[in-house]
């Protein structure tokens, strides 16, 4: 049956503003009960970061750049991870979100293999917190158990609260302003000091991000706007738009002087 999508959430990442400060990463870990990233997890390459800042080198000393790329679940409209899950643990909800149902997941990790953006994480160990630290855990977010897959949810719990308070109680339309005012933006967006992350409703004219999606869907992929989606050619139709990094000075890659 066809559901009329009222909200279709989306995000815009301005690569020109991202300083790689990791503020979003910590905010996400605090909000979503991510397991503590111990030293061993890093060494085993199993650290959890629902949003991660990738750093890419470009050029060599002295003409060198470190490019920062924040990657979170792109909530693909045509998500490769969805059809391959044998137990429907991951599916597309009626708000354009790609959601993970933890209690169904058996941990085949097929979705992780088939995720183009590598934003799905597997609980190899039972996540544990010291007893006192458990006071901090967010009651709105399930604490995942060992052996299941987890990933960025666009802080769906905040969206739910927003719907409850703003839409049901106050009967006002939900948009990025009403959400931002009440701390209902996803934790990373709320945290970002340079406003490199923007969140909102793709279907809502007055949302800041609406324009970018309009623009993107308007043209055939290459116009003079800065908006683009990573690995778009694969056809996953992500809900996250990146704005190109602006290079003030031309950097000649070929010649690298020491």
């Amino acid at each position, binding site marked *: 049956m066809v559901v009329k999508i009222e909200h279709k959430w989306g995000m815009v990442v301005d690569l020109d503003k991202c300083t790689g400060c990791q503020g979003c990463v910590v905010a996400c870990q605090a909000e979503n009960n991510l397991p503590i990233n111990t030293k061993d997890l890093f060494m*085993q*390459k*199993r*650290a959890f970061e629902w949003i991660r800042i*990738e*750093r*890419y080198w470009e050029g060599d000393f002295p003409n060198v750049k470190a490019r920062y*790329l924040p*990657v979170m679940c792109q909530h693909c409209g045509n998500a*490769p991870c969805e*059809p*391959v*899950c*044998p*137990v*429907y643990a991951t599916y597309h909800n009626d708000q354009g979100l790609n959601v993970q149902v933890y209690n*169904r*997941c*058996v*941990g*085949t*990790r*097929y979705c*992780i*293999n*088939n*995720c*183009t*953006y*590598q934003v799905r*994480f*597997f*609980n*190899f*160990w*039972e996540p544990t917190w010291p007893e006192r630290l458990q006071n901090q855990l967010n009651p709105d977010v399930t604490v995942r158990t*060992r*052996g*299941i*897959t987890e990933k960025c949810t666009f802080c769906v719990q905040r969206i739910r609260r927003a719907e409850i308070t703003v839409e049901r109680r106050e009967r006002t339309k939900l948009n990025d302003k009403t959400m931002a005012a009440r701390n209902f933006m996803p934790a990373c967006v709320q945290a970002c000091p340079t406003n490199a992350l923007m969140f909102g409703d793709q279907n809502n004219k007055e949302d800041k991000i609406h324009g970018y999606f309009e623009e993107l869907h308007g043209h055939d992929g290459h116009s003079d706007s800065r908006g683009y989606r990573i*690995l778009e050619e*694969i056809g996953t139709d992500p809900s996250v738009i990146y704005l190109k990094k602006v290079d003030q000075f031309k950097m000649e890659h070929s010649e690298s002087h020491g």
Partner: protein
Amino acid sequence: MQEGRILPPEQINKDLLNSIMSTPKWYWPAVGICSFIVLIAATVVAYMINKGLGITGLNRPVMWGFFITNFVFWIGISHAGVMLSAILRLAKAEWRRPASRAAEVLTIFSLMTAMTMPIIHTGRPWRSLYWFFPYDFARGIFPNIRSPLVWDPSAILTYLTSSVLFVFIALIPDFAILRDNTTGLKKIIYTKLAMGWQGNARQWKLQIVAGILLSALILPVFVSVHSIVSWDFGMAVSVKAWHSTVFAPYFVVGAVHSGVSAVIFVLILLRQAYGWHDYIRREHVEALCRLLIVVSTGWFYYFVMEIIFGIYGREADEVAIRTLQFTIYPWNYIMIIFIVTTYFLPIFLWSRKVWRRNLLIVSIACISVNIGMWLERYILFIPGQINKQVFTFTWANYTPSLFEGIIVLGTFALVTLLLLLFSKVMPLIPLYDIKEGDILKTEVQIGRRTVPATFRED
């Protein structure tokens, strides 16, 4: 000159049932060793289920490692059975006769072993029932039939069922002979199993028709099983190295390659172990090797296709994967070993008739094939995950842990153990098939030469 004597039926019974009637002195030690290894592996599995998959070497880019490699390997081995008994039966190849039973049994046991792999490799094995069977009717949610992981169990279970049926049908006449040669409890059991076999014309006719029908019906299943297993990987658009159209036939042919080699090796072992020199003869081994030359060459063709089209696409990550496979340690060594052991060494060893008839050389070739085919799966699955997409920031290596190694070893011990136990209760060479073959044997005089010949209807 005719190879092997034409023996009286009683002799055949006596010889081929000796694995059941008498126990060689190496038997129980062998069983002991195997079950010990299996026990250790089982303990490790228990530990893993208790502690979580953390004890494996899997990490973020590389989510499928040794277990899946091993799973595909055993599924591959399981393809010997139908290949030998069904296809060759339909093709009326005389030299299939001694091999068929062993092949089918190997099929069944390797299938069972293979199925354990994906289950223990899930994060929550105790829940994987969800995955095979519909549940949760309340909310009308069934397993997601779009997922190749749901196609898998259905195909494999179908294959298992039909193979069991196949073996059983072929076993009935032999059960009857066992029934007549045993006493006490055994006799009762075999009587039940023989289902009142008299050996009259009608029963023979039914048994044969059933056999032929099953062979014909099992063929599509046979092809589908490994094709579907290959589509577990082929469907994954995000792992470029897996997303290749050639995978299905490539895997099937590869499976036959490794499977038949394994069967040959098992046959040689049986021959040495039970002294069945008159039944498993060099001509059989040679014929199987000749078959393998064709099969492996076909496999090699698909392999080359797969590699060439890896680079054909000119996608950065895919090129990186091939670079990894061919130029970067340790993958370049694995690649060389794999290609040599899977194709060039065996082909060389099978190239001359004298060598094809030398059991030692043949066993070496067959073992090397299976080493190679295991590595093939490994080198096919892992690098694709290591260099996944163009996110070089997340590319990371995979080193399997000791536990994974033990479990993999355990699967080999398990199959051996099951075969040993089977050989104790049922004949590993179909008696009636051999007798039939002997009856059909004859000779033709051409000038001064006598050429071995068989009665045929075409």
